[in-house]
């Protein structure tokens, strides 16, 4: 006899466990299946532990610059093992937090590999080989994604790393090559650079963080170079040879010339592959596109009773997008008519140094889409709080539709911008125009005042520049 539930969630990452909690709130008998750690990649091997690492790097950076603030710090050094240990402790704490949340919400947890065995049926094979048969009218697939390998060199965890190896390094890299300058690549580049490694970043496209606004890319590249990083855009790695002492990399530069350099370690951050294999999707005829499951605005797949959320579906591949989809899917299942998500209202944050945050259309995308735009830009150097903090690098850019005043996008780089972007996100979700933002009173002295100034700047009304 199968254990019967109203809903089974396959995968307990930020999409899956949030979906399960929402389902429990709505009175659904809910089971969640996880093969490794409750909380998934995000809080065990992704978002959270990297923030712990980056925090150590940030404090280390401040200690090295203590004299800038009139302080003396001598004999400063970093203990990479202790830094990693702290990061693992943070992950562990949150993992236990999710365990507690499952218990509190009376969600049944099955640890093991889950596989759809038919409509509304799922079997879970635990590590000890024990098989549990589950049944439910609805199943949410939230199996996430994993790092994409280079076609010519598989990550071995010794010299060639994915994010996962980079998070728990056995040794501190001396000379690091980072392939790919998306959020993951740039965050690790930033971390190891701050920790003292010599870092080179290779990006195939013509600028770093290519999904961000071009002005942000340009600013970041300059900032990273100033910190001592080598940035190669329009470049590609043709070949990696693991040697006794490191990795020899053949890098084809912008000019087409191939140079070979040796690195102690390589981090491969060239994208993700969705986890759609061996979970029974093919047999049920669940439609995928380039490996990712195709869903409708309520996260439903082409097969009745099967929903999919998060990284296993279409981009953007972000934890908060997965969580929100989890809520949408469950509410749809419970007959609640949730509102579809607008991807233009999903913010993105990159915790490199300086930080990057954005929401909505870049200036270039807005123009491509046919908007006549009004663009405002305000630099950190014009903000009192930024100067007091000693963080006067960066800017906030705001893009409006000139015709309607619609807030189309916002793009920021600089200290703590990841905590600022929510202001614009709320504004976008509420469909504000420039008028409401201009009329909002921003607290002084804060970094948030730059958002106000940036909005004013778009209409030629900046006060402090």
């Amino acid at each position, binding site marked *: 006899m199968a254990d019967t539930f109203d809903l089974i969630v396959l995968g307990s990452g930020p999409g899956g466990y949030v979906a399960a909690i929402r389902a429990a709130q709505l009175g659904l008998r809910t089971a969640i299946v996880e093969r490794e750690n409750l909380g998934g990649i995000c809080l065990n091997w992704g978002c959270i532990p990297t923030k712990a690492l980056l925090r150590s790097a940030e404090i280390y950076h401040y200690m090295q610059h203590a004299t800038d603030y009139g302080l003396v710090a001598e004999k400063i050094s970093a203990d990479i093992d202790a830094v990693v240990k702290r990061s693992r402790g943070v992950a562990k704490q949150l993992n236990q937090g999710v365990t507690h949340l499952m218990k509190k919400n009376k969600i049944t947890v099955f640890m093991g590999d889950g596989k759809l065995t038919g409509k509304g049926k799922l079997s879970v094979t635990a590590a000890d080989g024990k098989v549990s048969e589950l049944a439910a009218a609805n199943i949410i697939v939230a199996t996430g994604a994993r790092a994409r390998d280079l076609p010519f060199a598989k990550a071995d965890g010794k010299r060639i790393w994915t994010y996962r190896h980079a998070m728990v390094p056995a040794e501190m890299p001396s000379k690091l090559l980072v392939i790919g300058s998306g959020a993951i690549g740039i965050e690790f580049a930033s971390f190891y650079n701050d920790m003292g490694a010599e870092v080179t970043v290779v990006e195939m496209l013509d600028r770093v963080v290519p999904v961000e606004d071009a002005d942000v890319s340009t600013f970041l590249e300059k900032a990273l170079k100033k910190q001592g990083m080598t940035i190669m855009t329009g470049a590609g790695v043709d070949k990696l040879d693991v040697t006794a002492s490191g990795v020899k990399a053949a890098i084809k530069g912008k000019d087409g010339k191939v140079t070979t350099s040796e690195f102690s370690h390589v981090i491969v951050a060239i994208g993700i592959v969705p986890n759609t294999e061996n979970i029974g999707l093919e047999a049920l005829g669940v439609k995928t596109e380039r490996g990712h499951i195709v869903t409708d605005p309520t996260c439903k797949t082409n097969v009745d009773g099967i929903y999919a959320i998060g990284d296993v579906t279409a981009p953007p591949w972000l934890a908060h997008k997965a969580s929100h989809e989890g809520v949408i899917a469950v509410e749809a299942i419970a007959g609640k008519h949730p*509102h579809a998500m607008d991807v233009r209202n999903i913010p993105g944050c990159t915790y490199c140094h300086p930080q990057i945050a954005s929401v909505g259309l870049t200036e270039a995308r807005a123009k491509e889409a046919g908007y006549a735009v009004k663009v405002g830009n305000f630099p950190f150097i014009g903000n009192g709080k930024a100067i007091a903090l000693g963080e006067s690098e960066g800017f906030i850019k705001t893009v409006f539709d000139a015709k*309607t*005043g*619609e807030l189309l996008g916002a793009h920021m780089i600089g200290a703590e911008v990841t905590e600022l972007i929510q202001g614009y996100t709320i504004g976008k979700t*509420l*469909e*504000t*125009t420039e008028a409401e933002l201009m009329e909002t009173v921003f607290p002084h002295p804060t970094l948030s005042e730059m958002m106000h100034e940036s909005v004013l700047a778009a209409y030629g009304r900046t006060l402090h520049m």
Partner: protein
Amino acid sequence: MPIEIKMPALSPTMEEGTLAKWLVKEGDTVKSGDLLAEIETDKATMEFEAVDEGTIGQILIAEGTDNVKVGTVIATINGDDEAAPAPKAAPKAETPKAEAAPAAAPKAAPADAKPALATSAAPPASSGGERVKASPLARRIAAEKSIDLAALTGTGPNGRIIRADVEGAKGGAAAAPAPAAGTSAPAAAPPASKPASVPDIPHEATKLSNVRKVIARRLTESKQTVPHIYLTVDIRLDALLKLRGDLNKALESRGVKLSVNDLIIKALAASLIQVPKCNVMFTPDQLISFSRADISVAVSTPSGLITPIIADAANKGLAAISTEMKDLATRARDNKLKPEEYMGGTASLSNMGMYGIKQFEAVINPPQGMIMAIGAGEKRPYIVDDALGVATVMSATGSFDHRAIDGADGAELMQAFKALVESPLGMLA
């Protein structure tokens, strides 16, 4: 300092109005309580009185100006010793100053003008009742495309009108004048419809009055969004006519003469109390059931249809209903109704019997759940005790909002109504 006189909000939903007539001219001395102007709102013409004392400095908005936004400075009053002020270029929209001191309006104010000032104390948006929930972006796009937000259904959280709802709607008439300088949402924009090109036949074009615009908007909205069902019954009137005759004899000394309609108002109210499932209002997420029956009675006036209300008609005596109805109808024809006298009501009554109309179906007056249409009482062949006889009979047709009211419930109401009219002593008890 000259005192600014601003366009008042004479009803909770008023956003703009027509400055119909100035009752003062520049240089006139006014004291608090003096009538300054007549303002035409969406439903009625109201008198606007002075709160402050002084001399009228400048009249900034000429009479006959349409779409004057609430809060616009329409004139200035100078204190005793002040010279005329420099003209003001752009009157700014602000909350009317009048609201600051409604209590200060002394006893000199005519009785019926007082409540008008009192209502102006509440800013329009806070009244809750008919506020249109829309995002700022939706409001702006609607204003640019001359779309009436009130006519749209919002798909955002809690029925909020969002950009997509406005973009999905058709724009207003291309030839329609752009809304005045400001960009806030138009309150009484004409219903979104394509302008028909006027055929080349000798004709006269009359500007739509605010009342006509509101009628057009509300009836279009009703027929487009409310699924109507119609239930018709034939009702013998003989007993009611007899009762009316007897009552009128008795009431003659008091100068009261009941009309058939007065009795029907009472019968409709009493049947709504008997069948509360029909005394309702449909909202997107709630069904509101009223425990009092307020009957909106359709009255034809020179400027259009208006529906003054007999509140709590089930519990009112017939003489009281009759007296109240006469007063309301008279003032309705003179455009002198106060907003609270025609806004609200839980169901409506429309009687076309006096025109000899045999039977008709009326359009529901949203957000009410039903309207009763009364045809002419006439002598008809009628079966009484299995024999063909003659009886005075009228046809009554109820229109019900089928979202809120099932056919069987509507039928129950029609039955109760018929029983009360045919045995009218039942409604006196």
